[in-house]
């Protein structure tokens, strides 16, 4: 009986092993696998159409479109890289690339990309995907953080409406939110579920760098006066002025929208692409508008982590993959992708497209901010994810909620934070 059972189990295992699904078949021509993370209907459609157009005009280089998922993409890619089964062309975000670039999983695109594409995308965007001496991704879509405002409320309050040419300063923003607040209503609702990236990116406006690289290339955290401006404003709005809702500090952007539509918050700082949700969900007749985020000593500068296209180091067809990326990111195509995702293209030619300069859904306001977008601080700093999760996220959350003061925030970011970073820089 035991022998029978064992044989049965063994036969079953062999049967399963024999039923392999097999690998990709080249069929005499090159087949590239393009894993896209596009998820919104228009965006998926734009990607699929572009792949179809490429396949129609390039019979010898077929591209297979695979829809990936933002959820778990890092682990999925890491496993695929380790197993030698990664897609040839990889859609990701620049802040997720550092480990893959330093780990040798991504191809250095420096010698693969055509001059047209290199010159079309500005240097400040290339910096977001540059690690060491190499370029490991083509940044192609980005979004600034903007203030989405209840236009009627602001008009009734008689406040000056900021423009990209004349934005609010952080101090002016604080005064205005105080003026808009009262009676259970707040001038602003900060959705700070992920407080670190929001804080670091917006702090660039006041010159906050936080991460400082010395001559040896070692990075240390220094939380100086320039870094304090944005966090102190938020802290004071929540805890001193009561002009920012304390309940949304732990919320994501979407969670604040019902309160925004319901007239509880006058403004919500959100990514530019949230406009799509607002268009879909806003009550009929709800008058909203996009305003630039407050400016500091460095104007409207803010950090971004653009979406990127990379090529796997193991891909045997890097040149063809680079040609496909070049095709996908031709100015007209980049505009189609940008419109599909409600984001801004990085390409200077694409940014000139009239569709991105309309007042409809305030595309023009966002486009005017493109020149101010820089590489998000720390995305190339080794140890940043651990610093962010273990040190910075709880420290900022406690500071914003009023549980700790600025001195303790500084102490934790610097002393505890530098201990973490030091482990990665020995």
């Amino acid at each position, binding site marked *: 009986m035991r022998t029978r059972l064992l044989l049965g189990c063994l036969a079953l295992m062999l049967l399963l092993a024999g039923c392999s699904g097999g690998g990709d078949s080249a069929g005499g021509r090159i087949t590239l696998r393009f894993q896209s993370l596009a998820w919104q209907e228009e965006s998926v459609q734009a990607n699929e159409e572009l792949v179809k157009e490429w396949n129609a005009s390039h019979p010898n280089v077929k591209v297979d479109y695979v829809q990936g998922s933002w959820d778990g993409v890092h682990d999925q890619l890491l496993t695929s890289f380790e197993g030698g*089964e990664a*897609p040839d062309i990889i859609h990701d975000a620049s802040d997720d690339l550092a480990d893959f670039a330093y780990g040798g999983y991504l191809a250095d695109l420096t010698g693969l990309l055509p001059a047209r594409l290199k010159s079309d995308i500005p240097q400040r965007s290339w910096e977001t995907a540059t690690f060491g001496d190499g370029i490991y991704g083509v940044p192609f879509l980005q979004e600034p953080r903007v203030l989405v405002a209840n236009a009627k409320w602001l008009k009734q309050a008689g406040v000056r409406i900021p423009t990209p040419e004349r934005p609010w300063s952080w101090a002016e923003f604080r005064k205005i939110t105080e003026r808009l607040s009262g009676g259970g209503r707040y001038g602003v609702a900060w959705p700070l579920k992920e407080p670190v990236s929001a804080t670091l990116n917006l702090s660039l406006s006041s010159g906050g760098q936080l991460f400082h690289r010395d001559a040896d290339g070692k990075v240390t955290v220094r939380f100086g006066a320039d870094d304090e401006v944005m966090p102190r404003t938020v802290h004071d709005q929540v805890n001193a002025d009561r002009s920012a809702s304390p309940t949304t500090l732990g919320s994501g952007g979407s969670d604040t929208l*019902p309160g925004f*539509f319901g007239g509880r918050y006058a403004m919500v700082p959100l990514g530019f692409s949230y406009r799509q949700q607002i268009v879909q969900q806003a009550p009929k007749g709800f008058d909203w508008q996009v305003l630039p985020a407050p400016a500091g000593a460095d104007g409207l500068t803010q950090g971004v982590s653009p979406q990127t296209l990379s090529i796997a180091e193991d891909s045997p067809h890097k040149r063809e993959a680079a040609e496909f990326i070049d095709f996908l990111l031709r100015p007209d195509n980049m505009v189609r992708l940008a419109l599909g995702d409600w984001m801004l293209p990085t390409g200077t030619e694409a940014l000139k497209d009239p569709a991105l300069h309309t007042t409809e859904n305030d595309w023009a306001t966002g486009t005017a901010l493109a020149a101010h977008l820089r590489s998000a601080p720390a995305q190339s700093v080794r140890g940043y994810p651990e610093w962010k999760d273990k040190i910075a996220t709880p420290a900022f959350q406690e500071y914003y909620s009023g549980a700790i003061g600025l001195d303790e925030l500084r102490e934790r970011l610097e002393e505890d934070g530098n201990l973490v970073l030091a482990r990665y820089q020995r």
Partner: protein
Amino acid sequence: MRTGRTARAGQYVALLAYLVFLAFPFLWLISTAFKPPRELGSLHPTWIPRDPTLANFRQAFDEQPLLHAALNSLIAALGAALVAVLLATPMAYVMARHRTRLARAATGWVVVSQAFPLVLVIIPLFLVLKNLRLINSMPGLIMVYVVWALPFALWMLVGYVRAVPPELEEAAAVDGAGRLRTLVSVTAPLLAPGIVATAMFAFVTAWNEFFFALVLLKTPEKQTLPVILTHFIGAEGVADLGPLAAAAFLATLPSLVVFALIQRRITGGMLTGAVKN
């Protein structure tokens, strides 16, 4: 008497509160699935949609191959349940009936194996499956699900086997039944509820599993329902809530239906013989 009634009423209230607590997410999911986008953004959401719509379901089906993914999930879940039970039943029998050192070591290993986090095993597992040419294949995924479900399935079944009195098997042997006959005619029927419960556990585990499917399946036509559901979610957790809720609601139905069909049998079986008459 009055105290008894009060206590009973309190028990019912507690039970009701617990049921509401358990049902709340599912009811909210149903409510969301039938709401138009503008109601999803309402500051004062209602349980019953004010303007119910099927648009979310239409959009979900238009955008993603839900039926195909559901079929893939069904194959993976049924395959995993079947193989897990086929493997776990004889193993559990041996571990329960023969208390040798090996059986004790195996039980310990079953417990220890539960402690390994997913991320620790995924890369070695990927490499093993790649060498077996089982990446991007349903048999490969089923094998992983079986391995993943097997420790708990074993642990469950060992308990069921121990609950079957050995005296029944001894009585059958006295009556002249051979080992196989005893297992088939005496032990197996008594184990049926346990086997069904174990199969259900393996089925639901595989039906809901996301990460292995995400990593191991490369081509869209092989993707399972949990992977397809994440296609309604963008960067930083932004989601297309209506279609996501509609698709998630549909994805939950098979588990519910299977449970509804067999739950009486499971509980009935578990209680059989509990009280000596």
